[in-house]
């Protein structure tokens, strides 16, 4: 009964979404309050039904009901409870159900907390949200139904892909989806604004928290996915420019641009039309990501199954929504009132520059990801576009962006003073130069590029801090006053400081890891010692062990520094009988922000084991940076105050006031 009730709840959610996507629009057209309010109650009811449906699927997985095809194909009765739960979204059907659940969640949240919205805007937003939801309900019910049954249930399931049997699966997909799908709200707001033909600074104030939530989760989701790939795939790499990774990076870049242009719009009533376009593009890229990952166009860890009808269906959804929204944009954007004006050198100008760089970077990733696919479709040639392409295109775009980051917050709104900002950044520049010089001297002979890049990162961090110092008047006013000002400073400004510093921190991690990474690859026998970066790793023992649904070979290493025992590390190799697959479980030893990394390879007949050992200096900063960024985002989100950008008055105006 649970399976059928869950199935029926999903069907009802579709019915409600269809009503939600039409009735409120009619209500808004005829200014009927009751009809517009239907959006709200249907959105909440839809959320309840989808949540029930999702809960039903989780229950089925937990109690291993193999009469459900989805459970039979992706679960196993011996699997630990946590993987029974996470396995729900570790497969195509379940993950799509999670996708629509989160979509309904955001719709429901707008319905519940959207009291501050004008009624017609809320009705439009929820209706657009329901269009997206209806399309995906249809997709799930017709092509990827998780509730299909088998009349004679098999005794045992086929188990979850072993690579996915990891705690990472509990965190990474939900976070990523919260990010992807969260951008649907800004999309719905943008379409609603286009339909209503009205947009102003208040619109940005209403969209900002939703965009910020989506951005925070996407940031954390990508960082978590990267860390997961780092420790699970056993190559010690953290970003492979894999099309699936790019699919998540593209909405992130567009979303970051959107976040910044929303600030301009809310504070200054400018960049309105551009912000609308960015909202549409960001969600379109999220949909594209879903298409790339879910259609089976790409084969990777993420492609759980390939089925042409699914691909065609998602492609159809993609075309309708992206094509439709862009056509609507082309048609209606000219009707929107243009916003405020500003000088090229100003905070607005700096944010436009940020938008240009971010969107160009996004475009290069787009080309690098889709060009091989397009080429394969047209000519049948298979090419792979990898790190070299992205390093040559993405890198040069990010470099000037990083230089510009500290300048932005120091420029005044409307008309800024670049020279003044540069003077105020002197301290940061000096810190960066010292960092470059010290590193140069320390690593003489190494890569000349690395110290410069780290100098840039230090500049970004010190720039964020000098923005802070500038605002609270540190060193200019007595310390007590400065502290008081720091306390009174809006949390959104603190958020900017943290997020920008996070970028610099991540850059330091990336440069250090790629430049000073050392590795040892070889075969080891018991009691062999591998020296790496000053550490000594001795292979003490190799044992076989039984897990709940796998067997594993565990090697025990003792890590020593200068002869002193630090810790033991136990990398292992797991063999999952049901799927006949093997996974490597790397062992990590964290020393400060650096890590030692051991991953096991094949065992030779004479008992020697191939091992890969890496020493990765400051590698943790790569993920600490995004966490810092997300923390900054949360600070900004927690700031309930309004954002006002006071313009710097023109000189003449100031003269006028002085005369008064």
């Amino acid at each position, binding site marked *: *009964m649970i399976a059928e009730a869950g199935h029926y709840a999903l069907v009802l959610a579709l019915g409600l979404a269809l009503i939600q996507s039409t009735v409120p629009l009619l209500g808004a057209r005829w200014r009927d309050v009751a009809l517009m309010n239907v959006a709200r109650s249907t959105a909440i009811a839809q959320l309840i039904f989808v949540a029930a449906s999702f809960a039903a699927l989780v229950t089925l997985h937990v109690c291993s009901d193999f009469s459900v095809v989805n459970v039979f194909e992706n679960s196993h009765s011996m699997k630990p409870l946590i993987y029974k739960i996470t396995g729900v979204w570790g497969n195509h059907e379940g993950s799509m159900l999670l996708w629509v659940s989160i979509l309904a969640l955001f719709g429901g949240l707008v319905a519940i907390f959207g009291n501050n919205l004008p009624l017609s805007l809320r009705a439009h937003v929820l209706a657009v949200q329901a269009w997206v939801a209806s399309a995906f309900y249809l997709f799930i019910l017709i092509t990827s139904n998780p509730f299909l049954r088998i009349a004679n249930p098999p005794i045992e399931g086929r188990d979850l892909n072993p690579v996915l049997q990891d705690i990472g699966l509990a965190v990474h997909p939900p976070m990523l989806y919260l990010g992807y799908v969260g951008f649907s709200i800004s999309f719905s707001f943008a379409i609603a604004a286009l339909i209503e033909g009205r947009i102003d600074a208040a619109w940005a104030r209403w969209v900002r928290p939703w965009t910020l939530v989506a951005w925070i989760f996407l940031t954390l989701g990508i960082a978590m996915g990267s860390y997961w790939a780092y420790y699970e795939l056993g190559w010690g790499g953290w970003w492979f420019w894999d099309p699936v990774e790019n699919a998540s990076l593209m909405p992130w870049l567009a979303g970051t641009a959107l976040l910044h242009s929303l600030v301009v719009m809310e504070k200054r009533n400018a960049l309105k039309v551009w912000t609308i376009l960015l909202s549409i593009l960001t969600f379109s890229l999220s949909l594209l990501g879903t298409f790339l990952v879910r259609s089976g166009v790409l084969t990777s860890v993420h492609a759980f199954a390939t089925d042409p009808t699914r691909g065609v269906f998602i492609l159809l959804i993609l075309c309708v929504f992206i094509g439709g929204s862009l056509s609507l944009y082309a048609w209606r954007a000219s009707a929107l009132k243009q916003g405020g004006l500003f000088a090229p050198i100003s905070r607005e100008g700096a944010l436009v520059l940020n938008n240009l760089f971010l969107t160009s970077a996004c475009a290069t990733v787009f080309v690098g990801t889709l060009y091989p696919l397009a080429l394969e479709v047209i000519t049948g040639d298979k090419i792979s576009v990898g790190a070299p392409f992205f390093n040559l295109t993405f890198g040069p775009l990010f470099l000037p962006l990083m230089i510009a980051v500290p300048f932005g917050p120091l420029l005044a709104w409307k008309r800024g003073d670049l020279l003044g900002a540069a003077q105020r950044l002197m301290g940061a520049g000096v810190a960066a130069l010292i960092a470059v010089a010290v590193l140069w001297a320390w690593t003489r002979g190494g890569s000349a590029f690395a110290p410069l890049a780290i100098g840039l990162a230090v500049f970004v961090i010190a720039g964020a801090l000098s923005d802070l110092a500038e605002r609270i008047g540190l060193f200019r006013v007595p310390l007590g006053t400065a502290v008081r000002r720091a306390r009174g400073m809006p949390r959104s400004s603190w958020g900017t400081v943290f997020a920008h510093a996070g970028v610099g921190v991540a850059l330091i991690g990336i440069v250090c890891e790629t430049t000073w990474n050392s590795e040892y690859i070889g075969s080891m026998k018991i009691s062999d010692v591998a020296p790496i970066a000053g550490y000594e790793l001795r292979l003490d023992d190799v044992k076989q062990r039984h897990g709940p649904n796998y067997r594993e070979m565990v090697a025990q290493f003792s890590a020593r520094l200068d002869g002193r025992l630090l810790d033991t590390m136990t990398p292992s190799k797991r063999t999952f009988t049901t799927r006949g697959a093997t996974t490597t479980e790397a062992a990590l030893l964290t020393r400060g922000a650096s890590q030692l990394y051991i991953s096991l390879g094949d065992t030779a007949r004479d008992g020697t084991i191939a091992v890969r050992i890496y020493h990765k200096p400051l590698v943790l900063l790569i993920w600490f940076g995004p966490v810092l960024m997300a923390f900054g985002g949360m600070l900004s989100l927690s700031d309930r105050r309004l954002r006002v950008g006071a313009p710097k008055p023109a000189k003449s105006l100031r003269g006028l006031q002085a005369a008064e």
Partner: protein
Amino acid sequence: MMLWFVFALMTVAAIFAVLWPLSRGSRPQNDGSEAAVYKDQLDEIDRDVSAGLIGVSEAQAARVEISRRLLAAADNQRELPSGSNIRLRRAAAVMALVGLPVVAVAFYYPLGSPRLGDFPLAQRDRRPATTQPLDSLVAQVEQHLENNPADGRGWSVLAPVLARLGRYDDAVRAFHNSITYNGDSAERRADLGEAIAAAAGGVVTAEAKAEFERAIALNADDVKASYFLGLAAEQDGRSAEAASIWRAMLAKAPPNAPWRPLVQAALVRVGGSPAPALSDEAVAAAKDMNESDRSTMIRSMVDRLASRLKQNGDDVEGWLRLVKAYMVMGDPDKAKGALAEARQAVAKDPERLRQLNEGLKNLGLDG
């Protein structure tokens, strides 16, 4: 019955969600407006000025700007009086009352299986277990051997079972341990070699060959080792040598030896078509199985070969073996599929492509 009741309840709840706001009439609610946002912004400026975060002149300029927006918003507000439309509301109500159940049934009826109850694991376990799964027995023995690795008898029992389950890598380890703790013997060496060959997808690797040679050194008449050495020779393309090994075996063999037909068939094969053979070692391993077991085993080996080739398509011999295997299994479609894949895999390498085409000609398929 219970299920239909739940369905009905859910449908009613969904309809209620649509009807409820319709029944609430159109009294204007205190919804938000742009003006509210701008008023808040003006308050915010006052707060910022008093906190010393912005200067007085900047605040003045900001106030002017926001006031302009406030006026514009207030203008907009006045343009739009709210109305009510009874006919549309009735239509929406009908849509909920009729449309919703119709959509739900239209989708659920063809997709759902309302007659099927739940089958949670806990319930299934209560049914009598007909046979304890082999896997769990094996797991028990393995567990025992992890704790008592010196139990030679355990290893010698476990190893052939593992080989039969297709866990060749583990079987190799188990045979190694069996030799370590039970002592060396021709038979064990030959079994080990067979497992190594099976792990390599049926190819008698150098390592496997070394084991067979050791077996022959221990007992020159060991049947399995001799057979596989012949096979190794055949796979290396030395058909004459293979033929002489097998001929010698047949000469020494008692007339009623069960493996006689197998070796004879092999002999015919090297005498006839020079093309690489279908994995005979699988047949050898399966010689004491019944017909269906044997064909499953062969099929699984062919599948293993196919998946290995998917990962590394450079192996021309492997592709030929796969194509031939599919033909022997009476599956010409799959054979054609494998052929196409093989062409694609070696397309970039003219030398391999030539080998492939030549091999296909020998198989009787035109290149």
